[in-house]
């Protein structure tokens, strides 16, 4: 069987298959469907400094081969996570990675500081790309200067592996990746959701309470693949790829485009056990193609 271990900075994953922030809750919701301990890692739901109730309902609209969401980072705050949730989920035999959000650079710093002290968590994902919050979020990720500032600020207070999650809603994502690499990121993850909109023509009204939301699912896969491919060529830190991965072949495509690890997002909603099927499928692919070490596939287009 192929060796599936991959390394992102100092973070060691037993396989490249992880679950995307906001689509796997804290992992506990999936226990009846699969063993989270088999995953390479879990990127937990986005955390903010304080409790957030998120946006009003409706927060979701189905689209062709995808969905829009505008959850808006609903969570009980980082302290609640550290005290109540992490002690439970760190029992899973896998890497737990927090997804760090803020409305200001100060917020990002405070959340990262708190997580820096958290033993047994070896990486955070800095989300500068959430399209569903008014202040902060994507605003940081689409502006080169603030992307740099946020990364540098968090780098100063966070000593372990720092992954920066990039927004696809930019002209030049490779340039953005280079900027956060310069600013001290150990890895980049991409893509977050694409800004989109749905309208109910019968009532002449936007479907989402927030008018616009973030598009995810198989519809965005070709766009995400292109971005992973461009970023991989532009930086020398590892790339974590995601966007519409539904099965093992999709995952392999992202790795061939340059991803060292992948995240599964929206697919968890329609098949909560999909991530384990992806691991099995990757193993099969490696066998069929004589791949002994999964890292051979990373950026392995011919």
């Amino acid at each position, binding site marked *: 069987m192929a060796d599936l271990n991959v390394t992102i900075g100092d973070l060691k994953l037993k396989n490249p298959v992880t679950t995307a922030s*906001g*689509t*796997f*809750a804290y992992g506990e*919701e*999936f226990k*009846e*469907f699969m063993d989270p301990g088999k995953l390479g890692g879990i990127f937990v*739901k986005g955390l903010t400094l304080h409790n957030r*109730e*998120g946006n*009003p*309902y*409706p*927060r*979701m*609209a*189905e*689209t*062709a*081969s*995808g*969905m829009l*969401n505008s*959850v808006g980072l*609903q969570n009980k705050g980082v302290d609640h996570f550290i005290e109540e949730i992490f002690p439970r989920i760190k029992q899973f035999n896998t890497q737990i990675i927090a997804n760090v959000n803020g409305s200001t650079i100060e917020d990002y710093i405070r959340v990262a500081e708190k997580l820096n002290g958290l033993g047994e968590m070896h990486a955070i994902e800095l989300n500068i790309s959430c399209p569903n919050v008014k202040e902060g979020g994507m605003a940081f990720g689409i502006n080169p200067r603030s992307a740099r500032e946020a990364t540098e600020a968090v780098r100063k207070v966070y000593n372990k592996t720092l992954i920066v999650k990039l927004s696809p809603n930019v002209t030049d994502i490779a340039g953005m990746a280079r900027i956060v690499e310069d600013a001290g990121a150990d890895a980049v993850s991409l893509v977050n959701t694409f800004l989109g909109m749905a309208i109910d023509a019968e009532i002449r009204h936007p479907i989402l309470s927030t008018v616009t939301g973030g598009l995810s*699912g*198989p519809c965005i896969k070709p766009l995400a693949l292109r971005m992973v491919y461009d970023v991989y060529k532009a930086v020398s830190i590892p790339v974590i790829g995601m966007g519409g991965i539904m099965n093992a072949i999709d995952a392999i495509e992202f790795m061939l485009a340059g991803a060292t690890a992948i995240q599964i997002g*929206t697919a*968890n*909603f*329609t*098949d*909560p*056990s999909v991530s384990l099927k992806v691991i099995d499928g990757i193993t099969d692919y490696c066998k069929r193609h004589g791949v002994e070490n999964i890292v051979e596939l990373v950026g392995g287009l011919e």
Partner: protein
Amino acid sequence: MKRIQDFKVAGYTWLNRDSYLIELESEQDLPGIAPGNFAEIKVPGNPGVFLRRPFSIFDVDYDYRVLSIFIKIIGEGTRALGSLNQGQPVSLIYPLGNTFSIPEKGPVLIIAGGSGMAPFLLLGKKLKERSVNATYLLGGRTSEDLHMIETFSDYGQVFASTEDGSAGTQGVVTDHEVLKDKTLPFRMIYTCGPDPMMKAVARLARQRNIPCEASLEHMMACGFGACLCCVTETAEGKNVCVCTEGPVFNVKNLAWQI
């Protein structure tokens, strides 16, 4: 305990042009299903319906491992589920959500609008088991919206009202006489249906000081607490998931403007 399970289509009963019961049969045993619980169904062979669709469990036969689901066609998913082949596999995630609370004693009133009656057959069965006397009030725009009145009448007296008067009393449910009779000592009102109807029922229940539980049909992406898309606001201003904290809520806990 919730699970993903494959069923096979065992048959259909068409109730009218756009409503049907679908019977789904499994080879595995069924878990315990409480009234109000729902299932997330994957529409098979139609990648155009990307997300699963939530439906109340209308009826269950543990011996023969059969679930009945009542479906009203409103879009692509509900249409596609109505034309599967006998024996075709269908994947369900279920049982999901919470259940209704059952008072020590009755009588209780169940008010359903159109397809909102779906969770109330299992509730009626449970009430009967617990010897709690139930009255049904089924409402719709026309008689076409009322289904299976005879089935429900095994579990309580059934009143009907339609806006056009084509069945039962003419008018909206909240105008029905059974609600006007102040001497009827209902211990609980259960409701499911269009939002405006449920809110009108909730208002009435508050006026009459009767506890009221509503089953909400919010749009869902997952159905099991993973996405946080299905929220409703509570009286304290918190957003809670309808799929895990609901779908049944005591209306006094909701931030409804009533």
